[in-house]
């Protein structure tokens, strides 16, 4: 059932995640609350260990939260293990594109086969239309050829991963450092593609997990800054990047190399 438009696309309440590592408890997420309206692009920034990828994995249903609630379009993340029909149902709401497009595509499946599989699993097209629909989706991301991943470049593979995610027509698309590994000239192409997709699909909500504040400026409406499992600051992209208030956000902003920038060092324990 499509949810009413009034409910936020993503709603996270007091989310916590504790991992048990070698008999010790590690709090990866220590109480995170936020909402994302339908069609908004939210950047989640923070350094390694801040909990941003764990948060994404919980939203995807790949990790169970220790406590707290997650809702997508008003529907609660089901309790217990997500498998079979429940996993498929959740995956229809949220899709993810990962940083490492070499690991996230099946090396034996062509680009078209990969997208067709997503269409078939989620019953998005009748059998006879799988191939043409897959080609159409790949065309939408600017890929007009069919090949195995090992003969595609990094940028082309990431386009396949985006086409596969869009095939499901999700409410939410999570991009976890999805352009971080791409060459500068190719990264720009993928960022433009995402801007085109937002224009064509105004209801699609984007969660952009990244450490790159230049990418944040380019793709996001709002920003959530995470540090050690907590949200330390959030606001519009312009506020966070031009008028950061939290010391950590300020330090992050000052560390971005730009023309005329000079690095500064402190001693560190």
């Amino acid at each position, binding site marked *: 059932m499509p949810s009413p438009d009034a409910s936020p696309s993503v709603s996270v309440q007091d989310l916590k995640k504790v991992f048990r590592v070698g008999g010790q408890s590690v709090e990866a997420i220590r109480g995170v609350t936020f909402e994302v309206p339908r069609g908004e692009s939210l950047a989640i920034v923070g350094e390694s260990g801040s909990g941003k990828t764990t948060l994404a994995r919980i939203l995807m249903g790949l990790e169970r939260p220790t406590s707290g609630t997650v809702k997508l379009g008003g529907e609660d993340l089901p309790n217990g293990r997500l498998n079979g029909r429940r996993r498929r149902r959740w995956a229809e709401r949220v899709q993810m594109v990962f940083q490492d497009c070499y690991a996230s595509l099946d090396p034996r499946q062509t680009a078209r086969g990969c997208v067709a599989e997503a269409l078939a699993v989620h019953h998005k097209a009748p059998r006879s239309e799988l191939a043409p629909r897959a080609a159409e989706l790949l065309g939408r991301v600017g890929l007009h050829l069919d090949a195995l991943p090992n003969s595609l470049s990094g940028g082309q593979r990431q386009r396949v991963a985006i086409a596969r995610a869009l095939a499901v027509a999700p409410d939410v698309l999570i991009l976890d450092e999805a352009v971080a590994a791409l060459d500068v*000239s190719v990264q*720009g192409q993928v960022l433009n593609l995402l801007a085109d997709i937002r224009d064509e699909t105004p209801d699609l909500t984007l969660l952009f997990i990244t450490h790159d504040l230049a990418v944040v400026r*380019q793709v996001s409406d709002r920003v959530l800054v995470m540090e050690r499992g907590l949200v330390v600051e959030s606001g519009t*992209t312009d506020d966070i990047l031009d008028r950061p208030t939290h010391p950590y956000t300020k330090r992050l902003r*000052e560390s971005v*190399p730009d023309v005329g920038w000079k690095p*500064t060092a402190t001693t560190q324990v």
Partner: protein
Amino acid sequence: MTDLLRIEGLRIQFPGGSQMRDVVSEVSLAIAPGEAVGLVGESGSGKSMTARAVIRVLPPTARVSGEITFDGAPVLSMASKQLRAFRQKDVAMIFQDPSVHLNPIRTILDFLAEGMRLRGVTGDAARSRAKSLLSQVLIDDPDRVLDSYPHQLSGGMLQRVMIASAIDGEPRLLLADEPTTALDVTTQAEVLAIIDRLRRERGVGLLFITHDLELAAAICDRTVVMYAGRTVEEQGSMAVHRAPLHPYTAGLLVSRPHVSQKQARLQVLPGRPIAAYEAPGGCSFAPRCAHAQPACEAEVPAFRALAGGHVACRRAEELRTAGLLKEVTHAES
């Protein structure tokens, strides 16, 4: 003044299928004593291979031609004894991922002391030397770090240890291959500052390899841009940003997002970066260049002097005069 490092017409080939394939076709650059030079390029441009050729750590199947001289001495023809002395005393290299260069079952002290042992420095002397090295890379509790194993330290800390090890032999040339790419941005700033300070204080020549033109500008006097195994532009780092000479550099500058201003769409280069062996005849960049003419595909453009730098583009003057290579500044966009 003699150049500290001089690379002239460097070509590196690897066997691929039935013939030899270029990974570096023609690279020329020079570093003066104490000078920092950024070597910027996308993946496959040959920048890492160039640095590896300088200390001769290329895979054994590589065929290398051209000339590399260090302080006037030809590196490519050094005999093994001479080469060992060169690597021990004159040059050091740091890499993107320090953890693969550290033995996980040995402590940091063990790692740092290994090079010292070759010079006869052992025991307490080695420990105090190692402590002093760590404080030079701004580690303020060197004793704890010395007794740690690599897995107990963060990536930024390990990269500081690698830098400490690199300066132990008091080299005159430091090769840094994307040393901060794997680090968080705040840690990156700190590690860069350490490299910058060391090279200024000690007058070490620096070859800083990166894919990021801003990083090169932040710590390098000059920037050399590579494309498909060739040097295509060389200029003062600030000049590269204000007035690039090559259409590729100009294209890179406008295609990346800026932290200070959002653009409706980025002005991207079409296609993807290519490796040297995929390059067509003529100018390798021509297939992606908005200003290419049939003549550009006819022959490889020479790397020639222009406006205080060097460029390999036959239309460079013309495009500069027409204002077609100017970066769109944030205010204008």
